[in-house]
């Protein structure tokens, strides 16, 4: 195929976009809708995952010393924790003294009278440790429980909550993957449906071209270009729509979360993912548009 022919077909495709306004609009908007839904689901999934990851990072490993632990035993534990921190396994830790512990227990009991006879001396010193990698908890727990001064029965890592979160994460991940897959299929289906209809409306033109001797690639060319253009246009519109809608939603939800004292939960802003989203959109739009057109045209070429 000669260069001038390729140029011609590209121009033809661009012209068709303008000439077939209804069909162009329909195809483009289907791409927009498909990508918009896809994008919102994707952003939802990213947010849920990142929030759960953040919650996981917030978990603390709690280690109680025995009530009668010696200063040496205490020192051992402090040294161990410091070493792990230097090794980059522990991000931070704090120590709660017996006095603090006593206060905490006092506050946690609804009736102070319950504490009659319970003194500072009876309280245990405790360590609250944040791990860099929540998955290293098991190893650290087994090491720390070797120390003499540590109350082996009272090491806690919110294991239960962690498991629940892990579970929820797993559910969300699988549901998200399923939903994304289903939406992807639906999107492709909707778009191909629309393209098929727009091609169908022009089947006679395709046949006429065949009858006067156009080769298949010549007929297909403008449709591919048209598909590209509409796919890209659709991706651009969808991107704008998604970013606007998402930013609006993000602001509203974050305000709401702050109001509700749930500020540990955060809806992330759009900008960090903008470029990636745009690339995903553009590729999806162009490929679907181009491939969809070619496939839809093919069945009418057989005359």
């Amino acid at each position, binding site marked *: *195929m*000669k260069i*001038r*022919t390729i140029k*011609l077909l590209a121009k033809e495709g661009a012209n*068709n976009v303008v*000439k*077939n306004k209804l069909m162009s609009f329909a195809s483009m908007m289907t791409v927009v809708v498909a990508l918009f839904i896809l994008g919102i689901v994707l952003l939802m999934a990213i947010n849920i995952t990142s929030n759960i990851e953040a919650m996981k990072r917030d978990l603390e490993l709690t280690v109680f010393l025995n009530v009668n632990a010696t200063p040496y035993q205490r020192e051992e534990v402090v040294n161990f924790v410091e070493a792990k921190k230097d090794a980059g396994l522990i991000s931070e830790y704090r120590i709660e003294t017996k006095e603090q512990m006593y206060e905490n227990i006092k506050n946690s009991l609804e009736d102070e009278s319950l504490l009659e006879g319970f003194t500072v001396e009876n309280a245990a010193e405790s360590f609250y440790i944040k791990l860099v990698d929540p998955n290293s908890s098991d190893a650290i727990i087994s090491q720390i429980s070797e120390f003499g001064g540590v109350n082996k029965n009272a090491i806690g890592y919110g294991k239960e909550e962690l498991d629940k979160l892990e579970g929820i994460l797993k559910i969300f991940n699988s549901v998200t993957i399923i939903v994304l897959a289903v939406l992807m299929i639906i999107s492709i289906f909707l778009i191909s449906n629309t393209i098929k209809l727009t091609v169908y409306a022009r089947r006679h*033109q395709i046949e*006429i*071209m*065949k*009858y*006067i*001797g*156009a*080769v*298949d690639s*010549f007929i297909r060319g403008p449709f591919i270009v048209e598909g590209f253009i509409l796919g890209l246009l659709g991706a651009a519109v969808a991107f704008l729509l998604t970013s606007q809608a998402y930013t609006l939603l993000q602001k509203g939800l974050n305000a709401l979360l702050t109001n509700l004292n749930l500020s540990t939960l955060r809806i992330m802003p759009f900008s960090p993912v903008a470029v990636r989203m745009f690339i995903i959109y553009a590729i999806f739009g162009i490929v679907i548009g181009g491939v969809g057109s070619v496939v839809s045209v093919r069945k009418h070429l*057989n*005359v």
Partner: protein
Amino acid sequence: MIRFVDVTKIYSNGVIGLRNTTVKIDKGEFVFIIGSSGSGKSTFLKLIMHEEMPTEGEVYVNGYSVHDMPHSEIPYLRRSLGVVFQDFRLLPNKTAYENVAFAMQIVEATSREIRRQVPLALGLVGLSKKAKAYPNQLSGGEQQRVVLARALVNNPSVLIADEPTGNLDPKTSKEIMALLEEINQRGTTVVVATHEKDLVDSMKKRVIVLERGDIKSDVKKGSYSNEDKDY
């Protein structure tokens, strides 16, 4: 150039379009195909351009054997033909000019050639002034002449015309037939299905008469009613 060997065309609904037809049209001939409505003229022409496939027998056109031609060869066969379709088949979203130009674009002519040839072809059929009109802005006869211009523009080795003057007044018809004759004299094989009794009679060309799918007669210098009968 064009050869039918024992060709039978039976349409999917059982209607016989053409029956046991054997005929040969040589390079440079001018042939009229006549016959009453539904006698198989268009079927004959559609078999030549590979719009329909023969149910039986073999069609040879410009060196192509229509029967076992690969799909990808069909466009090249068609490009060697210029076709005036009975139902026009103009692209509705292109102007008269663009429709004619399109036939040149598919053979990858240069834009210079296109800019020279298309106005010429439109001029030949008397439509220079309608170049910018879309098919639905043209009268029946004007559309028909655009189709003819499109068929001529690539100087095909064979020109096939199905009822090319059906929507034209006698004067224009005569001019068009004269044009076809001129083209034929320059070496192009011309096959015309027509009902124009006067023109067939006056032009004294080869006349193939079809009747219900059969070749009823094939006369070198025939007239519309060879045997004192109307078809």
